[in-house]
């Protein structure tokens, strides 16, 4: 999609929801397109008899390696061109299979200023159309202050 008007740290509150990003329904063709693009030939993603029979999965698994990009897109669009997504963390807790629609979501949990830059911590996740959370995680986004300095690029490591 791309970016809306730049968001400034001054305008963000704890509890704010990030604009969600939804993808789907994820057909076998969509899942296969990712496997082909990433040259991942793991059969659980496209070989239905194998994934259900041999590996006893409920269907064709939507790749975790694909799901992470939905989170990244949501975070990057919210950060805007002048912001920076400094950290993305997630756990793969549940399987998603063909024909599910997946929605990345995020919520601001903590705000502080460091070295003149706005640091936004978020909790994040990916829910399917039945409300199942499969990918709980967190993120750190750096935003400029309205009358502050630009977020440096390349971005130096955050102290932990």
């Amino acid at each position, binding site marked *: *999609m*791309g*970016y809306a008007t730049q968001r400034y740290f001054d305008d963000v509150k704890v509890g704010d929801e990030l604009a969600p990003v939804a*993808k789907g329904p994820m057909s076998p063709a*969509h899942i296969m*397109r*990712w496997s*082909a*693009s*990433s*040259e*991942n*030939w*793991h*059969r*659980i993603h496209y070989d239905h008899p*194998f994934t259900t029979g*041999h*590996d006893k999965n409920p269907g064709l698994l939507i790749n*975790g*390696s*694909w799901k*992470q*990009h*939905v989170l*990244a*897109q949501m*975070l*990057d*669009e919210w950060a805007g*061109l*002048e912001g*920076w*997504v*400094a*950290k*993305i*963390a*997630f*756990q*793969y807790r549940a399987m998603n299979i063909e024909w599910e629609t997946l929605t990345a979501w995020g919520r601001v949990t903590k705000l502080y200023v460091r070295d003149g830059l706005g640091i936004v911590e978020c909790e994040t996740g990916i829910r399917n159309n039945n409300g199942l959370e499969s*990918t709980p*995680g967190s993120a750190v986004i750096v935003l400029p202050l309205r009358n502050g300095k*630009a977020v440096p*690029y*390349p*971005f*130096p*490591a*955050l102290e932990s």
Partner: protein
Amino acid sequence: MTPAYKSFLTDDVKALIGVETEWSAYSDPISPSEVRRFVHAIMDDNPLYYDEAYARGTKYGAAVCPPLYFSFAFRRAHGTPDPLDRLKADRDWDAYGGGGANRQALPRVPHGFQRMVNGGAEIDLYQRIRPGKRVRTKARYHDIRERIGSTGPMAIVITETIFQDDDGGLVARARQTAIFR
């Protein structure tokens, strides 16, 4: 009666924590068409990934790849053995790793478990890779743990990989968790 479980986490295995690879060879230069296919597959139609005129007006100065593209720059090289040949003799193989990506491998952790689950990752991002650039990696074992869960014992292996572009710029640092059981 099945024999008692014997911990794999010996001193020799613990000694693998901190072991790191050399730098990998560089990937091929990232091609715009590879990025196009990737972007189609992730369905993120951001003009930053293909519209050079638009991208020139941004801090990036040129079209860049999506945020987490850097770890997908590694492809099997021409003239290398075909990993899928294994299916000729073993039709039950799941073809995991069959892409044969060109990365340096850490020594195997001798945990004895067969099934691997991708547990997730924690990724620090420093800059975007862009078409034409090459990427290389260095990996190390950040931690190796054992957990006895309700389904039995498992090995938790956390690998940290740093990604660098061919200007020497640090692109990202990723800690990936693999769970073996």
